[in-house]
């Protein structure tokens, strides 16, 4: 997978968390996720289709998801409620939709977001496409954005 596919997702993520939510998120070095199931307890998923194929997963620990969605929604949540799950879905939806602006070579359709939770779920990534993980840190804990996008060229 080319670096040029990763940068739009990183840019959209930083814009959402730092410029919009006013957090202090910092991105670490992207790496190939050797175990594609190596995700945290709460994951928001968007499928990508059209002139490319892939998926984007925003993955948080339970506590980080609750805190970040509280900032997003402007109200404090204490538990992993349906509102928090809805908020996680919306966050990944914003990242995927915004990234399309810079993926100008293709027409991409994004799916409705889905959110999965638990300590031992299995994520069905698109087959045969590597997953790149961008680790992030924030004042509400670490999280990651994971991208699997088929090379088109």
């Amino acid at each position: 997978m080319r670096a040029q596919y990763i940068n739009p997702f990183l840019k959209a993520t930083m814009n959402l968390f730092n410029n919009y939510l006013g957090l202090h998120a910092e991105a670490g070095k992207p790496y190939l996720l050797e175990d594609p199931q190596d995700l945290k307890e709460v994951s928001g998923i968007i499928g990508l289709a059209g002139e490319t194929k892939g998926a984007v997963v925003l993955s948080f620990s339970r506590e980080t998801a609750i805190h970040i969605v509280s900032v997003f929604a402007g109200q404090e949540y204490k538990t992993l409620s349906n509102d928090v799950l809805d908020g996680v879905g919306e966050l990944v939806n914003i990242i995927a939709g915004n990234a399309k602006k810079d993926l100008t070579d293709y027409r991409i359709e994004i799916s409705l977001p889905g959110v999965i939770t638990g300590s031992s779920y299995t994520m069905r990534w698109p087959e045969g496409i590597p997953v790149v993980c961008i680790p992030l840190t924030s004042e509400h804990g670490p999280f990651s954005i994971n991208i699997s996008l088929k090379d088109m060229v």
Partner: protein
Amino acid sequence: MNILIIDDSLVMRRIHKNILLEAGVTEKELLEAEDGKAAWDIAQKVSIGLFLVDWNMPNLNGLDFVKKLRATETYRSTPIVMITSEAARYNVVEAVQAGVTNYVVKPIKGQALIEKIGKYLRK
């Protein structure tokens, strides 16, 4: 004037609702729908003066909802603002061709949103 907020995300609807309440819109003027289908049903029963519509929704998506609305006599020229994460240029073009009045890319802060839609609120 009735304003219909259409978004499948409950959190997003709440964010938009709070922004509008802070801008002086009353609770009574605000209506909500979770997808285009539910919005269509509401718009047949209640006169809507402004639609704020998301794009990606189940059942009837925002784009098809706008096309359906524009085909009616009642809502041929009612302001429709699409508020979506879909930031690609071809999305904007498609939405404008379908008949949206204004196109706003999420995330957008409250003040910026009001600057974009304020002219429709004052009508």
